[in-house]
């Protein structure tokens, strides 16, 4: 989803943006390869790459790193605001694990629009939802969109 530039006046309360993402094992491995900061956790138990590693945590399948879930939702927000918008804050809680090959629905719901110091500020409720109806990531974002 790559949109044209949205303006503050284009946004309405209750408007929802969405996308989809399949968290394949290949994508997780690519993320781990780039982001070797996670290696120490991975070495500890293998939770991101193997069924055996995940089972040490009582999980049935390997999971995504939390920061990968953050990156997925961050991309959705970038798509909404780019190129001239700005992401000010992104606050997310990891409520449940995201498992390999989960089919995810990404959403960003507009819950507030306000002009602050001549800036068009939009507040969003963001979430990842899996195909079991669970929301493993829920949070809020504050973004700025051009007024003109």
């Amino acid at each position, binding site marked *: 989803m*790559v949109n044209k530039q949205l303006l503050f006046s284009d946004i309405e309360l209750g408007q929802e943006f969405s996308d989809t993402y399949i968290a394949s094992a290949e994508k997780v491995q*690519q993320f781990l*390869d*780039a*982001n*070797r*900061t*996670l*290696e*120490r*956790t991975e070495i*500890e*138990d293998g939770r991101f790459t193997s069924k055996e590693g995940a089972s040490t*945590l009582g999980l049935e399948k390997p999971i995504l*790193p*939390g*920061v990968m879930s*953050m*990156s997925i939702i*961050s*991309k959705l*927000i*970038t*798509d909404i605001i*780019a*190129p*001239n918008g*700005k*992401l*000010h*804050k*992104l*606050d*997310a*809680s*990891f409520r449940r694990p995201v498992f390999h090959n989960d089919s995810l629905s990404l959403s960003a719901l507009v819950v507030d629009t306000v002009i602050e110091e001549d800036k068009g500020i939009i507040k969003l409720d963001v979430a990842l939802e899996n195909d079991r109806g669970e929301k493993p990531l829920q*949070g809020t974002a504050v973004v700025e969109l*051009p007024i003109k």
Partner: protein
Amino acid sequence: MNKDDIDKAINALDKAKGEWYRERTSFPVDFSDIRRWAIGVYWPESPPKIFVNQDYAKKTRWGKIIAPREFNPFAWPVTANESNGGLDIGLIPHLRSMAGGTNDIYGTQIYIGNVITERSRVSEYKLTNTRLGQTLFVINESEWVNQDKELVRTRFSTGVRY
């Protein structure tokens, strides 16, 4: 979590709390770093032009290429030891860990040529009883600034240790 582990963890956290315990500096961010990152994130679709087209970027409010907000200037280290980021597992060993959440506050954008310095510290912690038994919630603060000391990002990561 047994009492010894709790005592060791609390002791380590008390010593570390508020102290910046790690600092690292990125290589200068290259246009190619941003371009490849954006291509990788959006593949097989085309990435937004703000990340890959300099002529287009000149006409935006930024006036030049910016990096995507999730861009990591510390990605692809030669060895894992160079990238000891995020929650410091070694600070409180022997405890299982899960990511609890992340709160990012963004400042200036990352531009081509920027050199990012990161430092981290334990911001706060809380020991409480959950269904997992005694559980530690440790909030780690990680700060990125550019070469002009402008804030790029502050990340508060909550680690759940049990």
